[in-house]
């Protein structure tokens, strides 16, 4: 039914790689930030919260351009990373992963934050009276109880990352085999005569991935409720 060409496969596999790496790298940061926002009061908290959500409301092309300015070969951070650590983002798949990670970050953090907020803090107190130091409380009580939310956030972030288009194409362009993800491939195909069939196949694949992710996220959310009620 789906007769996928090698070029399309390349785009699909690249999209998967970009989204998986973006999600895995973003997750520890997401958990840390979610915990900070859920549990701590500090100066500048609302600013931090707004900055995290910025990619959700900014035009993606603006986010992409800002990434280019910051992480491009001549950008402040980009030049440093390239000269000292040999990490280059501009026009590489790593740059696509960075763009996807940034764009999906608000979606990734939100369920994590909600699940941490939903945890009964008195359970953490109980753990402390049983001799658990704060970091042990986090790893044996907080994180396990928040796990379904963490997974839901990862799934949503992944779904967003795999479909990201605007920031990615602005930051790392649309190079087949290097930065051409499913979305940019579809964009190229519908501008080419006779590209409709190929575009249609890729569209079906991205719809399938998105629906799968939403179902998975919903399933994790339901698990979360069960877990908190101890059944």
């Amino acid at each position, binding site marked *: 039914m789906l007769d996928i060409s090698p070029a399309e496969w390349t785009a699909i596999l690249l999209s998967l790689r970009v989204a998986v790496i973006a999600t895995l790298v973003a997750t520890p940061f997401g958990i840390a930030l979610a915990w900070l926002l859920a549990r701590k009061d500090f100066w500048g908290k609302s600013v931090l919260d707004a900055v995290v959500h910025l990619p959700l409301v900014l035009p993606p092309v603006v986010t992409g351009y800002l990434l280019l300015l910051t992480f491009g070969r001549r950008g402040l951070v980009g030049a440093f990373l390239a000269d000292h650590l040999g990490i280059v983002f501009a026009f590489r798949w790593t740059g696509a992963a960075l763009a996807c990670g940034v764009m999906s970050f608000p979606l990734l953090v939100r369920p994590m934050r909600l699940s941490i907020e939903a945890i009964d803090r008195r359970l953490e107190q109980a753990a402390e009276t049983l001799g658990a130091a704060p970091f042990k409380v986090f790893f044996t009580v907080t994180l396990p109880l928040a796990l379904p939310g963490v997974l839901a956030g990862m799934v949503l972030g992944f779904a967003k990352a795999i479909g990201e288009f605007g920031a990615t194409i602005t930051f790392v362009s649309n190079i087949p085999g290097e930065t051409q993800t499913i979305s940019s491939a579809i964009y190229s195909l519908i501008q080419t005569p006779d590209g409709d069939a190929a575009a249609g196949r890729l569209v079906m694949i991205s719809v399938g991935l998105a629906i799968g992710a939403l179902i998975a996220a919903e399933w994790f959310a339901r698990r979360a409720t069960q*877990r908190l009620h101890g059944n």
Partner: protein
Amino acid sequence: MLRVDVEKQLGEFSLQASFSSEGRVTGLFGASGAGKSSLINMIAGLLRPDRGTIVIDGDVVDDTAAGIHVPTYRRRIGYVFQDARLFPHLNVAQNLDYGRRMNRLAADPAQRTRVVDLLDIGALLDRRPGKLSGGERQRVALGRALLSKPRLLLLDEPLGALDEARKLEILPYLVRLRDEANVPMVYVSHDVAELRQLATQIVMLRQGRVTSFGGVKVLT
């Protein structure tokens, strides 16, 4: 031995309490709002006194003048809350072993069996807390606190959330605990009958002040 001499301002409410107890079960008695829970939370280290000292077994855990405040997790206390607070993601056996694991104590199967038998929770070991009745939950919480090998066991109205029948179900276990477990206890309650059965010494609190201290006979 437990020595407490603390002051704490909580909004409008001021708590000023001083007592020392050698008793096996020190009952903290008073109406709700008398400051019992604040006091026991200070002994646990969950609440920090504004001024004063707390000494458990000769070990100073709070001394505001010297800037000492030992965090809860290093006080080696056990705490049984009114609402049990079992970990919902762990089964009963894992809940029981939690304190031992956190304190890096070697497994002590003999003690574990003793506590499990004492509280009759052997049949519950692989259940999740969500599947337990209120009374069962409280028994498991008792076992969990005991198995962390505390030097002092704090109980904050452990029967408060249970109906009369359940209370009568748990009370004998607490008596057995007092007579067999060999851990001094601080028992918070507003129920005279309960304290008469359990306590060996009474600290009576009223509006944040200790009004009397002595044997069970002060409960008149």
